[in-house]
């Protein structure tokens, strides 16, 4: 049988145009030339609009969906493709699930260079292989110039939950211990350093990472005592703690001195007038654990490469206002509230 002829894409100078989204030969060329090799796996290679997947018997299924619209598309420590894998895998892992499969839908702006698209697809493929979670099905659409910021990626993730695990954001109780897996603010600062009109240079890399390995170690060490996990992405640690406070109907008492912040992240935040508490992270998690399991949990986290700087940062308390109270490193007190809108650099 002869192999179907595929016109090779001009990777150097070629750009996506509206024909690549119309379902015809051009789109097939795009998929073959860029996505097929980037993601190569047995499910995708079947070439159907749906993936036929084995699911572990007797386990509960966990599903999540996400969209990635980050700008710039390429930033220190990652790109929209690697971010999409990490973020989706993490959403599954925060529930304690073993991530199994991903889907990826690309909305591409007319005029987007093939070279950039390939770079993103290759990165996403490599990241998914490294995480052990294949992209089993996908979709491609092309929209007119100006209707997408280069490319948007929408994902779904499917995982399987071990028996008896019931992590949930409403399970924190007064007395529970709050553990943070590492330094905050890295991702947001890395992104900002590539934005126009904010011309500072820093060696800070995004902390974007898949956390399911760390989570597996945490479950093994303190499974029965673990109440919930959440990754502090948009809105930062402040948003996550406030969400959890309201979901669980508790307050939190946090000690600023225990929260790890890299010196360069602290410095960049000082320069721009930002507070690291509100800056996004993409490779960190917050865990709430019953006191009996705290020590074992911390030890297990610190033994893992993604949890070396893990720290106990406070505890849940009874609080009718659901306040997140923080003792500042200075010794005074303050409330850590949700951020209103996006944090903007300030002059005052």
């Amino acid at each position, binding site marked *: 049988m002869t192999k179907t002829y595929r016109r090779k894409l001009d990777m150097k100078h070629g750009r996506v145009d509206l024909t690549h989204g119309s379902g015809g030969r051009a789109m097939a060329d795009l998929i073959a030339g860029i996505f097929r090799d980037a993601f190569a796996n047995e499910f995708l290679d079947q070439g159907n609009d749906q993936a036929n997947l084995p699911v572990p018997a007797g386990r509960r299924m966990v599903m999540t969906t996400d969209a990635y619209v980050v700008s710039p598309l390429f930033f220190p420590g990652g790109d929209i493709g690697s971010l999409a894998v990490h973020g989706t895998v993490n959403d599954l892992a925060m529930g304690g699930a073993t991530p199994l499969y991903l889907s990826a839908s690309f909305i591409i702006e007319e005029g987007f260079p093939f070279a950039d698209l390939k770079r993103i697809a290759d990165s996403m493929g490599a990241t998914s292989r490294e995480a052990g979670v294949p992209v089993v099905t996908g979709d491609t659409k092309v929209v007119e110039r100006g209707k997408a910021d280069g490319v948007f990626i929408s994902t779904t993730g499917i995982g399987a939950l071990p028996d008896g695990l019931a992590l949930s954001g409403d399970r924190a109780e007064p007395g529970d211990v709050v553990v943070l897996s590492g330094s905050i603010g890295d991702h947001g600062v890395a992104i900002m350093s590539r934005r126009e*009109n904010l011309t500072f240079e820093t060696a800070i890399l995004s902390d974007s990472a898949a956390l399911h390995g760390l989570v597996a170690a945490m479950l093994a060490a303190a499974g029965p005592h673990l109440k919930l996990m959440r990754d502090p992405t948009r809105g930062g640690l402040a948003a996550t703690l406030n969400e959890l406070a309201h979901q669980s109907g508790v307050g939190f008492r946090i000690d600023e001195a225990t929260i790890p912040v890299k010196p360069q992240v602290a410095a960049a935040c000082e320069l721009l007038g930002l507070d690291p508490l509100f800056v996004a992270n993409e490779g960190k998690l917050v865990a709430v654990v019953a006191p009996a399991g705290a020590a074992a949990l911390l030890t297990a986290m610190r033994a893992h490469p993604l949890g070396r700087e893990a720290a106990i940062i406070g505890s849940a308390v009874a609080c009718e206002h659901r306040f997140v109270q923080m003792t500042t*490193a*200075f*010794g005074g*007190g*303050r409330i850590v509230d949700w951020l209103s809108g996006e944090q*903007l650099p300030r*002059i*005052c």
Partner: protein
Amino acid sequence: MKYVDEYRDGALARQIAATIAAVAHPDRTYAFMEFCGGHTHAISRYGIEDLLPANLRLIHGPGCPVCVLPTGRIDDAIRLVQRPGVTLCTYGDLMRVPGSKGASLLKAKAAGADIRMIYSSLDAVAIAEAEPARDVVFFAIGFETTTPPTAVAIRQAVSKGLTNFSVFCNHVLTPVAMRAILETPVAPNEPPIAIDGFVGPAHVSTIIGMEPYREFAETYRKPVVIAGFEPLDVMQAILMLVRQINDQRAEVENQYIRAVTAAGNVTAQKLCDEIFEIRENFEWRGLGVVPASALRLRDAYAAFDAERRFSVATIHADDNPACECGAILRGQKKPAECKLFGTVCTPETPTGACMVSSEGACAAHWTYGRFREHQTKAAVQMAS
């Protein structure tokens, strides 16, 4: 960070707090206004008020250029950027300040206006140079700290021969505002302003020096202590103010000696003097129309003055009648005493600028101080 971390030492803070408590006379109260919004923010962020004795109160002053910008000027900026070909460059602080009828620069941007957030005034000049087809307007705000950077930008635009760069100038003056606060007539239904002394602004003072504050010490008999930006600086300055009050002195003292000299930054003063002159009048949110309180570009620089270039005619816009920003900016009322606080007016849906700006008294109270009435000092001791 050098010259920063050592002035944030919590252990030393608690010791100084003990000294302040020991030195403050128990049979009187002390009320000090920290003029500068940056100090308001630092006081809130570090929880400094938790460390002060109960008879010592800090009053948050109007030294927040975002907070005192009247609604009408935001409306002007929005109208400017809606003209064809205009690019408005602004600091991030102004994006969410409410204009009339709930408008804001952020909303105007969402509706398609070419508004660009910048970090430095020189970024606006760079944009003008890179995009000669655009009419670039720089929305300049700030007290004397931020005025020299605008002057540098204008100087740069001149030397590059730019014809598409102009400044919408809203720079305001600190000592004039301080005087206006002390001179505010007390209405029958309002409490009098009881200010015993001022924590003087840190970075305004690096520019203007110590001399401009002399009138407050000599004429008004109010001590002024210029304080650095870090929490230990603020506490040291408070201690110095308490000592002055106890000694019945009224002097201008400088705690921020590492950055503020008596003469200030003469280079910056000369540059500003060359480019700007004092307006006869300028409206402030909260203080009304204050004579000789703000700057505009001199005639020689008319080509760079957005108000002349675009014939800007500011229309006064009334604030929500229930909004107490005015009384709060004058230190007469506390945020919690405003009927709109926490209900209609929140950081998500701000009515007045005191809530929008992160250093406004209302935003600071919302974020840091809302629960303080429920807390006792014991809570701080428990945590330490």
